[in-house]
């Protein structure tokens, strides 16, 4: 056995569009999805009509009322499984896992129910409020969609949820517990109540997301999902699947420090562990997909960690920060960034960091400020969540 875990399918939905074929040209061309919400903060919204259209062929009768959280996961899953050539395949059964990351459950459903109860004074809310909004609903819906009877779960670690999901799923495949995993994340956090809660935290930009720029003012939320099909290399080869790349490494750590502020030492631990797990020397050329939220402190601490590990000039590294285009999808963001990063590796093109206007001496990194050609085989995708929950994924280009 090779022990390698390979990627054979990728799907996504976000403010940038439905599907990777639509998302990639936009993001590599410098197009962003951030726009006004009618509230004090902008966001990057999914086109709800196009999401519904992508599911219109399904018989959803047994699935109950779908919160966007689950709808997004289903759209991304259909694309990934279709690309992997696994739709209706016999290996989609007991030995396939579903591991998705979600940060906060179905906010739209909860908002609607609570508004009815608190503001309208109604005594009942919709009976499907709980099953629709529960944070594990996307994993259940994906399992029902595909008829999967293996381990299925949602991992919640705020902004790192889907990095943890992909990493833990990778271990399931590596250990031989399953042959295939449907892994990624979904998030639908743009309900008015959720946006106001985030805005009240004081970390939101009033204009746009400007990772590592001196005038950055905070993060911008997005919504959507990204899902990958990962499987053992042997399984993929045996069924003649097209291998898109490798999920080669996973490092994770806990700062054990603060409920919101990042800690450089914890971040460094996760990055170094991921390199060690993948057998990728830190000196090796790599595309770095930064966590890059655009908040004052996060970007500064991440830049310090990157220069501490890779050297002051981060030689051989190209750094991207795609939240500037699709917003921060919280529990889904790591999976979306990994999908975009793997697509960038395949193309040898880095999508530009948007919103960047002036260098910050505290964040002196080799950023891809325009569409940038690069030559390397490895992706390092960073996720550093509130509460000090860090997860770093390493991908390799298909050989």
């Amino acid at each position, binding site marked *: 056995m090779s022990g390698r875990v390979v990627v054979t399918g990728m799907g996504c939905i976000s403010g940038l569009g439905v599907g990777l074929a639509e998302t990639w040209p936009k993001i590599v061309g410098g197009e962003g999805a951030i726009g006004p919400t009618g509230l004090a903060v902008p966001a990057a919204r999914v086109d709800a009509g196009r999401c519904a259209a992508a599911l219109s062929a399904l018989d959803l*009768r047994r699935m109950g*009322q779908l919160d966007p959280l689950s709808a997004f996961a289903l759209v991304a899953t259909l694309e990934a499984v279709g690309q992997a050539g696994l739709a209706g395949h016999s290996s989609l059964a007991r030995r396939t896992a579903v591991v998705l990351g979600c940060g906060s459950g179905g906010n739209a459903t909860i908002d609607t129910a609570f508004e009815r109860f608190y503001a309208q004074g109604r005594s009942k809310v919709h009976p499907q409020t709980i099953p629709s909004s529960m944070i594990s609903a996307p994993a259940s819906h994906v399992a029902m969609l595909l008829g999967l009877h293996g381990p299925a779960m949602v991992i919640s670690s705020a902004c790192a949820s889907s990095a943890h999901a992909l990493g833990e799923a990778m271990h399931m495949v590596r250990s031989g517990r399953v042959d295939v995993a449907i892994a990624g994340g979904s998030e639908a956090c743009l309900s008015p109540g959720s946006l106001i809660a985030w805005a009240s935290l004081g970390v939101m930009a009033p204009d746009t997301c400007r990772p590592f720029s001196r005038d950055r003012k905070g993060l911008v939320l997005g919504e959507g999902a990204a899902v990958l099909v990962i499987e053992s290399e042997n399984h993929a080869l045996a069924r003649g699947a097209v291998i898109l790349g490798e999920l080669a490494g996973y490092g994770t750590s806990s700062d054990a420090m603060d409920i919101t502020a990042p800690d450089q030492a914890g971040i460094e631990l996760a990055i170094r562990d991921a390199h060690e797990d993948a057998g990728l020397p830190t000196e090796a050329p790599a595309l770095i997909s930064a966590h890059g939220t655009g908040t004052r402190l996060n970007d500064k601490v991440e830049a310090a960690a990157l220069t501490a590990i890779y050297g002051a000039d981060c030689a051989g590294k190209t750094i991207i920060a795609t939240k500037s285009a699709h917003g921060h999808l919280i529990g889904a963001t790591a999976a979306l960034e990994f999908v975009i990063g793997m697509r960038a590796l395949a193309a040898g093109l880095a999508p530009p960091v948007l919103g960047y206007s002036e260098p910050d001496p505290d964040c002196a990194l080799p950023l891809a400020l325009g569409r940038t050609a690069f030559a390397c085989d490895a992706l390092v995708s960073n996720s550093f969540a509130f509460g000090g929950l860090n997860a770093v994924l390493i991908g390799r280009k298909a050989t």
Partner: protein
Amino acid sequence: MAATPDAILDVLAKETGIDRSGLRLDATFAELDIGSLDFVSALFMLEDKFDITIEPDSLGPTSTINDLVALVTARTGG
């Protein structure tokens, strides 16, 4: 608001995902394979639409569509 059989069946079709033409008046909820979650969701929407209260135990799996129509119609004074 008076509840017509058509308006009641429209709500039921929407909440259960069953085509309107498949909702025979003499069929039971069990025969139509309407699960408990769809069933309570449909009752909730009927309560909302017609501003009535339906006691949870007033209908069950062996009740027919006609029983539901009669109950809602009676509650709305029809």
